[in-house]
């Protein structure tokens, strides 16, 4: 096993995602124009959308990793699923918080049942449950198996939830959000694209670090077991 200091790719990834997030920040504040209707507060939109994208993408990776685990039964698929869920939860929490912060000045209330915000909050609840499920099982093999099943069933309900929540809001038209459309300019679209790329890179970096951490924990557990045997 290599020492952490030798992880060249890891260092490169951390550097790259750091630069990318700084560039995105710079573009959000200095490149993107001031939105006409909502003013400065609209600038939260770029990171709000980017963290939502990473959140949903992370849960999709967990879904795929769940299928991988059930098909192969290998520990690495479980590590991928677990790592991706933790990062996805962080980003989806950011989405919900930035959404609420944006809603207050834009619509005068912290929470509107805006469909995209609502489905993000539903995802947050689902994957908190996923974490609780993992925490409530002792056997590592069973934990991985149950978590894989839950990750799969949970993800297939996402499109169904989306349609249900969207139609629900269309049937009860929300006056607050109906005027929320934005006039986008090319500069805004470019800023959004850079933010999305920066956050995706950040996701890959964090995912890689989290997987390494879990592998290190596994290695440590094996070493402890060996040390115990030698001790006896």
């Amino acid at each position, binding site marked *: 096993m290599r020492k952490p200091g030798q992880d060249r790719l890891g260092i490169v990834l951390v550097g790259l995602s750091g630069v990318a997030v700084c560039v995105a920040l710079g573009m959000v504040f200095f490149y993107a124009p001031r939105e006409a209707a909502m003013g400065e507060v609209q600038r939260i939109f770029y990171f709000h959308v980017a963290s939502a994208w990473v959140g949903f993408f992370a849960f999709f990776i967990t879904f795929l990793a769940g299928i991988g685990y059930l098909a192969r039964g290998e520990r690495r698929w479980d590590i991928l699923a677990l790592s991706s869920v933790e990062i996805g939860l962080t980003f989806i929490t950011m989405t919900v918080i930035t959404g609420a912060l944006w809603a207050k000045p834009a619509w005068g209330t912290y929470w509107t049942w805006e469909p995209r915000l609502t489905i993000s909050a539903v995802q947050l609840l689902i994957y908190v449950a996923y974490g609780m499920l993992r925490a*409530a099982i002792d056997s590592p093999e*069973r934990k991985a198996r149950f978590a894989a099943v839950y990750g*799969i069933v949970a993800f*297939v309900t996402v499109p*169904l939830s989306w*349609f*249900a929540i969207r139609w629900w809001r269309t049937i009860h038209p929300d006056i607050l959000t109906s005027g929320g459309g934005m006039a986008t300019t090319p500069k805004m679209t470019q800023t959004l694209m850079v933010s999305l790329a920066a956050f995706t890179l950040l996701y890959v970096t964090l995912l890689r670090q989290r997987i390494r951490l879990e592998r290190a924990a596994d290695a440590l557990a094996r070493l402890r077991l060996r040390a115990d045997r030698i001790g006896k």
Partner: protein
Amino acid sequence: MGFVRKVWAIVAKDVAAELHTREMISAMLVFSVLALFIFSFALDLRGAMARAAAPGVLWATVAFAGTLGLSRSLAREQQTGCIDGLLLAPLDRSAIFFGKAIGNLIFMAVVEIVLLPLFSALFDTPLLQSGVLIVVALGTVGYAAVGTLLAAIAVNTRAREVMLPVLLLPLAIPALIAAVQATGGLVDGATWAEVGGWVRLLVVYDMVIVAVSMLTFGYVVEE
């Protein structure tokens, strides 16, 4: 023995066990009536307000009562060691899934058959119409299917019964929204075509959920 007869044997076993003890259905029924009263007190449901709230209260009650029955149904398999017998028997895992899910569906249906007239009377709402009955059936199928899968997971965790609602309710959100909207529409005198979108969503939910639960159930019960 054909697939259907194997499934039926498991259903018959669950029904016989329930007729013997009556613990699941009686707990679900008493809980449902209590929930009905609690909702009425909490929301001060009278007159027009009661009629407007009836579909939501009905589905919330069914969802919560369902978690009671579902966790009991799988916990009973576990405690009696019956699940080990089922796994040893020359049965497809999907036959066990359908057997348990259909059993749970029957128990929930019995509770609903009692609840619907009670709701109609107490909330002065026309719930006993064919459209509403179809919506109730469709909503319950998906809920019982995913509930059976997740209850099999929950009984094998340290938290047991506490785990099931946490796992199940967020996944049931699309079915609950569609069922409440369709029921509410029909009660307000909407035609079948007007609530068609919601009914189709329920049908799609049922198909997707039954398929995924059937495919993954084997991984949950294997040791």
